[in-house]
């Protein structure tokens, strides 16, 4: 940072030193400038993020149904009943919410786990001066660069029962099933796995990108010293790569978790715009349909608030645990 005299708290620390008798207006302008620069961003954030979020919290306390959409001021106050309905396990609403929550957890654990594993594997084998490194990186970034819907539609086509690639492979090429027993991938139990595979395909390049960048920051002498001491590849991965990569891993896993858990687009598109089979009904889809298809906006808001609270708690606990462990080491 350049050496500047700091005049008073709140004054820009990079501004040229203010002459003693600068006119008041000039000084005010200097103090106000950073705020002024942030005003457009603040206004937009308020309008599109903060106010709607607060409005969502307020709405969750009302019986806001289709009837009150145009005159929402008249919607009857509901107290905590939207929350009670969502959390009570003796009714259908609560049970299905819990089921879709559990499904989202399973979906997230599987998708993030495999996405991380593939990304980590690729960045380990491409560590250092591997020939064609740039080529592989560009190739693996394609799923990340493609618009999400283009890739999801392609997966939908590949998972078609009668004219898709997957069944062509399983039924006609490998003869694992007879044609009349060809599996359905977008209906029933398999739809969950179809969803997980599609999600992994999209997300693993992100893990790869981040981990590869993190890997580049590991000093090369560490590996050389270790290999002189006789440590093999496995040992080097365990004793050098894993600890050095820890901070990057913490961030990558958190970001992947939040993205995947909140993912709405993939299930929404994969099964043909919203007709999601029960076995793939994730939390985001569940809230969307209870809000827009059943037109119960109060209930939908309450469930979104619950989702947010869950994410906040998980993030806070995760950061606390990872930080404490780092301090302990």
């Amino acid at each position, binding site marked *: 940072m350049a050496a500047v005299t700091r005049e008073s708290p709140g004054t820009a620390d990079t501004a040229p030193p203010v002459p003693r008798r600068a006119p008041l207006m000039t000084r005010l302008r200097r103090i106000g*400038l950073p705020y002024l620069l942030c005003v457009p961003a603040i206004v937009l954030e308020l309008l599109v993020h903060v106010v709607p979020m607060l409005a969502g919290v307020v709405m969750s306390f009302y019986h806001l149904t289709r009837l009150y959409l145009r005159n929402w001021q008249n919607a009857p106050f509901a107290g905590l009943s939207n929350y009670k309905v969502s959390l009570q396990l003796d009714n259908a609403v609560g049970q299905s919410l819990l089921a879709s929550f559990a499904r989202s957890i399973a979906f997230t654990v599987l998708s993030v786990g495999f996405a991380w594993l593939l990304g980590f594997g690729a960045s380990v084998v491409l560590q250092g001066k591997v020939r064609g490194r740039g080529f592989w990186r560009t190739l693996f970034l394609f799923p990340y*660069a493609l618009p999400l819907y283009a890739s999801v539609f392609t997966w939908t086509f590949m998972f078609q029962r009668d004219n898709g690639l997957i069944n062509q492979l399983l039924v006609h090429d490998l003869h694992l099933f007879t044609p009349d027993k060809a599996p359905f991938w977008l209906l029933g139990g398999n739809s969950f796995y179809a969803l997980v595979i599609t999600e992994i395909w999209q997300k693993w390049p992100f893990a790869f990108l981040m981990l590869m960048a993190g890997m580049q920051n590991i000093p090369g002498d560490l590996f050389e010293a270790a290999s002189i001491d006789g440590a093999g590849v496995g040992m080097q991965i365990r004793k050098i790569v894993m600890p050095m990569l820890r901070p990057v891993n913490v961030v990558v896993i958190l970001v992947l978790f939040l993205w995947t858990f909140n993912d709405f687009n993939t299930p929404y598109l994969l099964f043909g715009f919203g007709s999601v089979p029960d076995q793939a009904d994730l939390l985001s889809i569940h809230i969307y349909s209870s809000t827009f298809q059943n037109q119960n906006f109060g209930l939908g808001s309450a469930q979104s608030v619950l989702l947010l609270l869950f994410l906040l708690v998980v993030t806070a606990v995760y950061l606390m645990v990872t930080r404490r462990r780092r301090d302990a080491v």
Partner: protein
Amino acid sequence: MLSDPVWFRWVRRVFLTLLAVFTLVPIYVMVTTGLKSLSDVNGDFTWLPNLNVSAFVDMWSTIPLGRYFLNSVIVCTTAAVLSVLVAMLAAYALSRYRFPGRGVFSTTVLSTQMFPGILFLLPLFLIFVNIDNTLGFSLFFGTRFGLILTYLTFTLPFAIWMLTAYFDSIPRDLDQAAMVDGAGPLGALFRVVVPTALPGIVAVTVYAFMTAWSEVLFASVMTTPASRTLAIGLQEYSTSTNVYWNQLMAASFVVSIPVVALFLLLQRYLVQGLTAGAVK
């Protein structure tokens, strides 16, 4: 680098080959299916197409693809450019000034990034509809303007974050030299900082554009047939009687070209910007 015994070289070859197959198969399917006729597509899946480019012609008339394309281009370009302009100002303040509220501002902005979209969707929808009702005409709901405003804000947190990092890497002496020459802070920003950070700024703009181009959730609720974007419009290839898979794949391929081309062109800067925060 890691030790490189022979067995590890084989692990590398096998692993990279498998990953390449996994990555490329859907892309191959997308491209070749676009090159098939509808009757071929409806039959058993074949690896090699009997070349037929009719899908690339017919896709423009089966649905108003041109209009959706235009909507997407207008909405995403405007949103990306405005988002970066707004982010540039805020990032300059965050990078060059220490002011009370700075920490709160940057934390709040960044944390909105992790909130589920579904949480804002409904209230934002209601707010837009109700403002429009009060005004008596559609300003926000179902218009390109409303969508631009939404996308612009969505990409804002990340743009601010990335640009602040870029600006931090530019020596402050440069701004000060400009100010000594009589430029104000804004002059320093636009005449010195922006030109120096240009690759980063372009990368952030492309990133914002890509994010908007792929957005589905808000487009599904906030658009009408007139303002519909590609993300939602492409579903119309699936009708109650038939799915025009060849045209859907051809259209998916064509709409991917702009973003993939931009991405590849600016790969180095994008990767730098994306990884900077996590790796530092």
